[in-house]
């Protein structure tokens, strides 16, 4: 290595180390939880060994019945059974109580354990249950990723949830829909603003630009807070509408989809205006003059020349807005209702509230995939697209 590259490596190393240790490794470990299936094999190692050796036909050997009961009881006594119980109960509701019943009865079960266990609960005699356990021995599972797509793994392959039980596909679709609508509105609003600012005399343009930059620099939370206050039932908008007799009772605006669109467009609009303004500033008036001298009417000059020339700005801004929208969490959580939440909300929910880290990781993986796809599309269709071009 040349001295120059040695120096370069030494300069880059600290940052690379930081990003690797405190971002890439944690990120990888987190996303790995989406496929990790170690609860069963950690808590019930002997049962795991027996089930892995079993061919999956009929029932497992008698030793497996004795092993699972004994290991469950020990785990329960040491208060280590929680994780595996949650894991199995997530795959099939009711398994927690089935297993707890067996663990509690374990001391009373007369040998052979197999027959006593089936007598205790006939489910223990079903090969299907044991095949579920065998699948849970890991080390990997597709359970969480499939659940995030409203599917479930079973004996007979992958089963799709019915339309009424579907949760996550509608959630992804809603996230996509909200993001798309916000993006389109932002593009439509950004275009006239950027155009006007690009043709105004410098002093006016600078003043106008300040009105875009002040919201841009104000944090997302502060702006969402402003909407949260304004949209209240007793808030300023309702007061205004009532004062002018436009409505005779206050409108419900907070915790609605309307509020989500309003606040998200407000937060993201500057991201659409700024790149577009940059592109419009760079367009030489000569092109339009040439078109005019060739006799093209105004609308035609706009459609055939100006619009195509400004398209890169529209595309760059829109992709930025869309990419940010897809990951939105705070704004919908504060001003939206329960039916207006996006994927991020459920990642937070599974991390904190329902403590199902497999699901949190699976949803995070899919959200990452969605974003990565967008970045790739962005690089393909927008020449010179750099996601780092704007303050987030």
């Amino acid at each position: 290595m040349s001295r120059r590259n040695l120096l370069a490596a030494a300069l880059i190393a600290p940052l690379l180390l930081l990003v690797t240790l405190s971002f890439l490794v944690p990120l990888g470990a987190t996303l790995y939880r989406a496929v990790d299936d170690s609860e069963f094999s950690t808590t019930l190692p002997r049962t795991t060994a027996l089930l892995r050796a079993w061919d999956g036909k009929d029932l497992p050997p008698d030793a497996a019945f004795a092993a699972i009961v004994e290991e469950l009881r020990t785990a329960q006594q040491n208060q280590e059974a929680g994780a595996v119980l949650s894991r199995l109960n997530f795959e099939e509701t009711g398994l927690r109580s089935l297993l707890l019943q067996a663990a509690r009865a374990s001391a009373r079960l007369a040998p052979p354990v197999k027959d006593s266990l089936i007598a205790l609960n006939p489910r223990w005699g079903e090969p299907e249950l044991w095949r579920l356990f065998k699948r849970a021995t890991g080390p990997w599972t597709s359970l969480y990723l499939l659940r995030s797509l409203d599917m479930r793994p079973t004996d007979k392959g992958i089963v799709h949830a019915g339309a009424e039980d579907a949760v996550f596909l509608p959630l992804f679709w809603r996230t996509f829909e909200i993001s798309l609508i916000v993006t389109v509105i932002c593009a439509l609003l950004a275009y006239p603003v950027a155009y006007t600012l690009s043709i105004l005399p410098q002093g006016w343009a600078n003043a106008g630009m300040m009105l875009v930059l002040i919201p841009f620099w104000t944090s997302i939370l502060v702006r969402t807070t402003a909407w949260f206050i304004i949209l209240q039932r007793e808030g300023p908008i309702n007061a205004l509408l009532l004062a002018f007799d436009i409505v005779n009772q206050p409108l419900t605006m907070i915790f609605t989809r309307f509020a989500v669109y309003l606040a998200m467009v407000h937060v993201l609009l500057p991201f659409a205006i700024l790149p577009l303004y940059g592109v419009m500033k760079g367009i030489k008036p000569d092109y339009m003059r040439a078109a005019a001298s060739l006799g093209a009417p105004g609308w035609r000059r706009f459609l055939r020349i100006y619009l195509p020339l400004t398209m890169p700005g529209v595309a760059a801004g829109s992709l930025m807005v869309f990419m940010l929208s897809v990951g939105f969490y705070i704004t919908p959580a504060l001003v939206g209702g329960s039916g207006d939440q996006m994927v991020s909300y459920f990642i937070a929910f599974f991390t904190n509230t329902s403590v199902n880290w497999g699901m949190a990781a699976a949803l995070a993986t899919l959200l990452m995939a969605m974003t990565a796809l967008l970045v790739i599309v962005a690089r393909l269709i927008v020449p010179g697209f750099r996601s780092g071009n704007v303050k987030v």
Partner: protein
Amino acid sequence: MAGTVPSAPARKLSAGRLALALVTALILLFLVAPIVVVFPLSLSSGELLVLPAPGYSLRWYEDFFTSSRWLSATWNSFVVGIATMILATLLGTLAAFGIFLGRFPGKALLLAILSLPMVTPVIVTAIAMYFSLSLVGLGSTLTGLILAHTVLSVPFALLTVLASLQTFDQNLLRAAASLGANPAIAFRRVVLPLIAPGVATGALFAFATSFDELIVALFIASPGQFTLPRQMYAGLREFLSPTIAAAAVLLILFSVLLLALNEFIRKRAQARGASPSGPTA
């Protein structure tokens, strides 16, 4: 100039132009109105956030500046913000100079990896931090928060400094070397003064990123480490007191100050002929 023929003798104020100006004014109003409306609300003398306010007073600002919660949140925000700024600017500037100097393949990939925290949805970064920081004993600590914020804001410092290095003339380094300066001296005496606006812009962005960050703080800060956004979020969830409006106003004023600082750096750099080409488009 889409709408007019610029060679026309006098610029007529056509109906189209008027409509365009009106639409622009309305959209700009939409952008600033919610920010402006918070000001009178925060000055209300009443307990409710209503307009017109029953009277005007500074009581909610007094509440902010005498509340131990808000004061501790302000302190935490500045500690974390300044520490993040120093770390991110230092690491980002060194790495940017390294990437600029190096003659090796795969620079684009390296840059993509280093700026990954910027394109990753923040919620994903937040849960990754939540799981791993508690594993190494840094959960619910300011150190953990600083580390997480540094990761989030370092790409801004890196890219800003890298952009300002694009206009840097490598011959200056050769000249410095021929005059006997070692790389460290050349960096400090020749490179740094020239890319200073870029470094300053990067530092400002790193600070602002940390100062405004909520989602990571939501996952890894306990009440003792609450920053201003985190305290504000907690307030919104509990009881909508006008103190929140006062806090919002203070944060808006602070953002305007940061914006002014950024514009100042840009103007000065322009006047000196160098372009910091900061991330503000």
